[in-house]
């Protein structure tokens, strides 16, 4: 991978990252728009969870990973401590794989 490609990816990524912080301080946004922006972050994160739990590339990820994430979801809704949620998810997936479930 040539250096110029790495730098191009870095520059583009930084542009995505810095646009919001720069723009937000130039314009005062109405509270409704502020609320919408924080909702956008939640919607994106939930979509990341759904896609990274269920899909690998463009295909279904199999059962082991979604099962682990489902355990995490149930524990999170029941307000389990953060380490319990994360470790339980990884353990569920690891044990299922050990048992031969993809």
């Amino acid at each position: 991978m040539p250096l110029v490609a790495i730098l191009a990816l870095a520059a583009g990524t930084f542009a995505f990252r810095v646009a919001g912080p720069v723009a937000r301080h130039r314009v005062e946004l109405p509270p409704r728009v502020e609320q919408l922006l924080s909702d956008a972050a939640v919607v994106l994160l939930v979509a990341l969870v759904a896609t990274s739990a269920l899909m690998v590339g463009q295909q279904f990820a199999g059962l082991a990973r979604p099962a682990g994430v489902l355990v995490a979801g149930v524990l999170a809704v029941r307000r389990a401590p953060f380490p319990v949620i994360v470790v339980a998810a990884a353990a569920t997936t690891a044990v299922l794989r050990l048992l031969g479930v993809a």
Partner: protein
Amino acid sequence: MRSIWRTLPAGLDRRTARDIALVCVADVLVGASFGAISVSGGLAWWVPVLLSVVVFAGGAQFAAVGVVLAGGSAFAAVVAGLVLNARLLPFGFAVADVLGTRWRTRLVGAHLTTDESVAFAIRHDDPDRRRAAFWVCAVALFGCWNLAVVAGAFAGRLVADTDAFGLDAAFPAVLVALVVPSLSTSRTRLAAAVGAVLAVATTPFLPPGLPVLVALLGLAVAVRRPGRRSQEPSPEPLDLERSR
């Protein structure tokens, strides 16, 4: 930076510190596997190391290296990485308040914005706690991630298959744990559910990264159905200036 560190003890509770430490452990293992995969695939050691420092986005790094190792062009690798990172644009707007007004902190903070640091920030409404959670997570992850990638690049053969430990489930689990408390209104829940369904449904047809952006269409639901929370005097996230 110094002003950020001075305000940390007030904003960072032990629970958040512990949670961030756990995310660091998971990211160390993933970072090491990134370094190992890149080098064992035939790339020079400095490629994954430099990518990690200047791009600092795990998903895009794996995607770019994956394209190159599969024989794709460098241009295709850059495009794949950029499409994946497009979500950082709306994230930047969502956490702009924690980055303060100084150019230096704004530029550094922007570079350190990741899924995890955003998720830790939105767990809190209080500006000090938002800021503390974001910055500690961001700086800790930057350090851990980059050291781990270096270690993986040089000790590649020693790194086992991280999927065997269920680490691929740990990443979504981290985000689940952080985001569930933010699903506090029926409006947000509905928007997130519609968005998640759209993202998963379009994944087989769209290049990686775009389905997550399609999820933003779920916000249309939120706009049309003003929930309880939006009618309260909203916790003003932009009052950082006052605390300075």
